[in-house]
């Protein structure tokens, strides 16, 4: 993590208060308590001896480390004391409170954990005082797939296989499969990452598309897989996936907001030409139908044809 001067200053001010109470603290323990690497901590310890009020007749902070323990030789020297821990800034209170309130509403969170979070939130609100006020200006709502979540969570903790009836919007069908759950995560929607015995591959299931879930007696036995990095997008098309080109008018610009794409070129009428890749172009027939007069599939031709055929077939059923 690149260290920004403001974050480092914030951390060093807390560090000084922390170290005062703990002579001979271990580098590993302090790094862990501060959520930083040992290298970052050593970097801070290199700066601290140059800080103090020596130009005002005080002292510099005489703090050093042998790489294992940290020693402060003049904790009582004049002008080096920041004394008590500092009040929370508005952004700090907001970051912590908004996250805590959001996590506390998650379905399936263990009751004891939820209670701990609710207690902690109340204490932070009280301690932050005025700084807590701005936290009401941000809020986050997670989806609540309560029942499915609870079963998936139990299957993970008991290491058991589950049976799913899962809805695929691309095919408009329900499929049944047995999967070995790996983990649950929430990024907007709540998902289960699992090893699918049917496809012999890792799959991500959106919990609001799970029509039915049953915990099986068989133990879960997913092969070791590297967990995907959630900070990247959930949809990561492969370079070899077929390309789809969609031309939308102004009313179809939302497509670029919902579908990860390679490019979105502005068109003269205020629309966009969107190029994206997907392993399964047929899955975009739904999109072509939804767009109506707001857009059309420019390529591939068979996808455009299948949308047109579907519309004609539907119109025939209406007697059109």
């Amino acid at each position, binding site marked *: 993590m690149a*260290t*920004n001067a*403001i*974050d*480092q*200053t914030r951390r*060093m001010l807390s*560090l000084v*208060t*922390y170290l005062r109470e703990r002579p001979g603290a271990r580098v590993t323990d302090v790094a862990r308590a*501060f*959520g930083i690497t040992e290298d970052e901590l050593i970097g801070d310890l290199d700066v601290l001896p*140059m800080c103090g009020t020596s*130009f*005002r007749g005080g002292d510099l902070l005489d703090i050093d480390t042998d790489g294992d323990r940290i020693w402060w030789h003049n904790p009582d020297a004049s*002008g*080096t004391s920041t004394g008590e*821990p*500092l*009040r*929370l*800034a508005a*952004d700090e209170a*907001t970051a*912590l409170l908004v*996250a805590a309130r*959001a*996590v506390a509403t998650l379905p399936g969170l*263990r009751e004891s954990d939820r209670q701990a*979070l609710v207690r*902690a939130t109340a204490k*932070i609100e009280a*301690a932050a*005082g005025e700084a807590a006020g701005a936290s009401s*200006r941000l809020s*986050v709502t*997670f989806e609540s797939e309560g029942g499915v979540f609870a079963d998936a969570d139990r299957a993970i903790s008991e290491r058991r296989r589950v049976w799913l009836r899962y*809805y695929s919007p691309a095919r*408009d069908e329900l499929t049944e499969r047995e999967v070995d759950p790996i*983990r649950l995560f*929430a*990024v*907007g*929607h*709540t998902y289960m990452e699992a090893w699918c015995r049917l496809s012999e591959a890792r799959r991500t299931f959106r919990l609001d598309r799970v*029509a039915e879930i049953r915990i099986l007696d068989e133990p879960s036995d997913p092969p070791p897989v590297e967990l995907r990095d*959630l900070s990247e997008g959930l949809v990561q098309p492969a370079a070899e996936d077929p390309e789809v080109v969609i031309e939308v008018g*102004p*009313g179809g610009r939302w497509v670029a907001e919902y579908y990860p794409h390679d490019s979105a070129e502005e068109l003269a*009428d205020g629309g966009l030409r969107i190029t994206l890749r997907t392993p399964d172009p047929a899955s975009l027939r739904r999109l072509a*139908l*939804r767009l109506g*007069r707001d857009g*059309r599939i420019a390529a591939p031709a068979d996808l455009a044809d299948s*949308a047109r055929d579907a*519309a004609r*077939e539907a*119109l025939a059923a*209406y007697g*059109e």
Partner: protein
Amino acid sequence: MAIAKAERLMNLALCLLGTRRPLSKGELRASIEAYIEAGKGAGGAAAGDDPGNDDAFNRMFERDKDDLRELGLIIETVEGLDGETGYLARRDSNRLPAITLDVEEAAALGLAARVWQQARLAAAASGALQKLAAAGMPLAEDPYGTHSALETRIPVHEAAFEPLMLAARDRRPVVFDYRKSNAARPEQRRVEPWALECWRGHWYLAGWDRDRQAERVFRLSRITGKVRSRALPFTAPVPDHVTVRTTVERWAGEKATGTARIKVRAGHGYPLRARALATHDLGDGWDELEIPYGHGLDAWLVEFGPDVIVLEPAELRAEVIDRLRAVAKG
């Protein structure tokens, strides 16, 4: 080598926190090595002869105070008898009130602090935990071991998020270009930002639209270009409860205004069946469903192509046929 900014900020903080009386800008300038070094300038001229150095120092000093205020430091400015402004950070106004957290509470906060995918809030959450650690919060043994298997992330992909968050925090009006979902061109909007809300992974802003003189909700991904904020007061009162979610649910068609009767081919349309108020097997490979009817239902039903047929109301049926015709013409 230039003195690192973190060292300079740290020294300014220590001077302001360590003093009992307000210190003038001149005293602070003479008290901090980085300011003395900056004052010497790079050229041969004596520092005092070069007004550019004073300007540079003044700008640096103002920025440094702002940075320390971002960290939560309350820096008071006091007018001295001699007309000179003095600065100090009083201990009692900068102290974190006593707070005692147990191991479970510490673990829960540690887990919550990790959810931000936005750099500024992630750093602020870590900073908050560090202040709490300094205040004696115990170290959670293994935050994952004792907790739910759920990993949570709050996605923030929209560039407009940070400037709007700061403007909402400081109650400053903003100006941005906004393209409505069906508009070809963006239009400039002047807004007093009240609150931001993340729903289904997308961020929305609720605020007072100065030109329309009404409350409006904006989707952040539709803001184009930069968000500019003005250091001006709000003109409209901020309501106690801001209803971002209700508005967005209405857009998304979550609020039904009636019911519709549709036919769905057997084995298809699971999400429609999941929300059906009633279902009858018609015996010919089709089922009849009664479903809630709200904004956007026509577009959704068309997605199912020939597997869904609208029976009533007539207006919904006409809308769906109209959309199908557009696709059939291709």
